[in-house]
């Protein structure tokens, strides 16, 4: 991603703004360039820390495996980790990126993802992301998961490749229950040509997405990847 700003900053240093809320960054600010997010926003994002579910990264009082994960019998996705709780503020931020198209948000959130993966000490071969249906992709102009993955990969020095394609578009998830969702998503992903080729040598894959709600989408992606030859599929999301 080429930033015009990087060029301009050399000549005109305009006052720094919070990458999330746009308020000017004055004193008493988290000043690190990787994030450029003001304290207020950092607080409101509510990072997940302390006990989490070993499998899905859900925040819990004590470490262990959460009820949802215990109940699920067939599970293709190995482990998920998330940065923030899915609060109304986090949701607003993700919607701002996703539906309003504020692509600048990919930068701070990508670096938050990178920090989470680093802390998790994930080791693997390739990073990929949940694809959009081509029609939706053209409508939106970009894929938020891809932006997040690219930003994260850039910071971690892990190659990001497009391994998956979406062959069927699905209607919005929010209005259905779990079993309906699973049924609808079945067979909506497939391996891309690149994916078929790369999976022969790269076995451990990390999938990036914006939100983990029930894990159906990520699980479906993991299934396709494992059928294609992946030995281990993990995922990382901004919110849980």
């Amino acid at each position, binding site marked *: *991603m*080429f*930033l*015009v*700003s990087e060029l*301009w*900053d050399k000549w*005109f240093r*305009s006052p720094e703004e919070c990458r*999330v*809320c*746009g*308020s000017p960054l004055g004193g*008493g600010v988290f000043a690190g360039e990787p994030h450029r997010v003001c304290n*207020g926003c950092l*607080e*409101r994002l509510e990072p997940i820390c302390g006990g989490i579910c070993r499998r899905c990264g859900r925040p819990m009082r004590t470490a262990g495996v959460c009820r949802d994960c215990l109940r699920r019998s067939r599970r293709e996705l190995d482990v998920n980790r998330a940065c923030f709780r899915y609060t109304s503020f986090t949701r*607003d*931020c993700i*919607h*701002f990126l996703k*539906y*309003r*198209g*504020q*692509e*600048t948000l990919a930068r701070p959130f990508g670096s938050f993802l990178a920090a989470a993966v680093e802390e998790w000490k994930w080791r693997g071969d390739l990073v990929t992301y949940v694809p959009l249906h081509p029609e*939706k*992709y*053209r*409508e*939106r*102009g*970009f*894929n938020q998961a891809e932006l997040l993955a690219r930003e994260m990969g850039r910071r971690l020095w892990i190659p990001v490749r497009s391994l998956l394609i979406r062959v069927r578009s699905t209607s919005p998830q929010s209005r259905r229950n779990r079993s309906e969702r699973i049924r609808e998503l079945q067979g909506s992903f497939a391996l891309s040509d690149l994916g078929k080729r790369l999976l022969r040598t790269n076995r451990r894959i990390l999938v990036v997405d914006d939100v983990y709600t029930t894990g159906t989408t990520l699980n479906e992606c993991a299934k396709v990847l494992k059928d294609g030859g992946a030995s281990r599929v993990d995922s990382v999301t901004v919110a849980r």
Partner: protein
Amino acid sequence: MVGPSKDYPFAPVSYFRTQEGKDVRVFTYEAAGSRRISLHLPTDLYFWEQSGQEIKQVQVYSSIGQAWRKQSGGRSRGGGGMGAAIRLEEDIQIPAEREELSRGLWQVLEGRALLWEEVCFWTKQWWGSSVEEETLRSLLQMMLLREQVRMLPGVRTPRVAWHWQCNRCGAAGNRLMSTPCARCNQFCLFCTHCTMLGKSRSCVPLFLFRPRPKENVRRSVTMRLPVLTGAQQEAACQSVDFVRNGVSRFLLWAVTGSGKTEVLMPVVRRVLERGGRVLWAAPRRDVVDEIAARMERVFPEEKPLAIHGERSWEERKNRLGSPLVTATVQQAWRFYRRFDLVVVDEADAYPLAGDRTLQMGLERATVRGGTQCWVTATPSPRWKKEAVKGKLSLVTLPSRYHGYPLPVPRLLRVGGLWRRLERGKPVEPLSSFFHRVLDTDGQALIFIPGTSDPPRLLKWIHHTAPDIAARTWATATGKEKERRDRVEAFRKGEVQFLIATTVLERGVTVPRCHVVVVGADHPVFDSASLIQMAGRVGRSPVYQKGRVLFLADVHTEAQKTAVREIKELNHRARQRGFLVVDEEENEHVPSE
């Protein structure tokens, strides 16, 4: 800029839908000696055929940005490779009912600046989902040919990168970002500054709908307004005069608690009576809500419309055509020469102060020959200078609505103030201030420079004055939500002493208020914010016992200016006979 909002629930609209996988959607051609842009070629063919002209050199682009560059700057970058020449088919028919549809569209959209998605959204709301993209393109193209609308790329990218700029908000430089775009299949620029109103980018057209020619109308407008005071009356008359004479911009300098909103209502009525439209722009959502509620009371028959990020589309759906609009300043970017009068409330406040893009938006929302009224209690030195030189017309409202003078702050110097507080040593003026608050049964706002200071202050109070510490205290410096709750508690009187930073210098008004600024020599307190803080006191006519105290190590220029300005305003009010009750006792001489 505030974050995400839900005021425009765009359903993602198919954007320049592709046919057989080909992005074919903006055309340029040559006719009548100049190069033109088209959204819908058949319409152009029909139009030019009627005037006996020929269309030549048709080219196709996937992005309005490129088409625009081709039109305005000759050759686009990369030679002629970007636009592909196409051949035209013969025999074009334009259905007759489109005439009427286009008239309807203009009526709905006149005076607005909208992106393609927004136009789609509006038309969908207006006609239901029955309009096809093809029809919409044709309608817009008819309007373009008749110059009822201007079409520009969302972000302009002329050949010289220096001049790249967002056409909607005017942002440039590092506020533009170049990203790979799946819509136009190349790198294109988008504006990160106005994204919360929908994404403005170089491959998306921005439409500026011109206002329709206005008929000369007179109508009667009901206004329910309490009787104005002498001072208000005078200011209102002056303001009406400015509008009548077509002054393009004037400043209303109204002190805190003067009833400035009421003063402008007669002006609003005058504009409405002549068939004009009014935009009341305010910096924050809470101000918009408050003004909108007042508009509702004063002009019940006008169906005033309020717009800001948290007001949903449903709420405003049936008031879209209202001539009286209250909105946050950012919303002005969505209008184009629509309002005869634009009132800019709290014109010196964040985010408006110093933001050229917002000022541009307000400018563009005003019709040519219209009036902008900037309202402030603390005009910047530059405005004052311009007013003195006669470059800026000025209306002053120096007295409060109840006729009591503004409370004059007492400046007190305490050597080593923070050190004394830290060590728990007595600071006599501060303790006596707190006791006075107790004695007069008041509430106190305690302003401090930084968010790290409250603990020090609280510790000192616990140490030196346990009786005061036993009262209800709260600190409104933390998270936004917490802050809102505490201010609410203070308003209700559940909290007697509230510690705050400059963030709250404007919002909080309670009747029995006292104010102390601890460490008033800190650079975060400029004279304007000191005047605002002092202005919290004495707002109610029945409680004039409130005091203002500035405590500091040294007397800064800001403190002195604030006191001087308040005294001067009181003096002016007295001279003009606006003060009903003149308490000389209220005016303290700054003492050491």
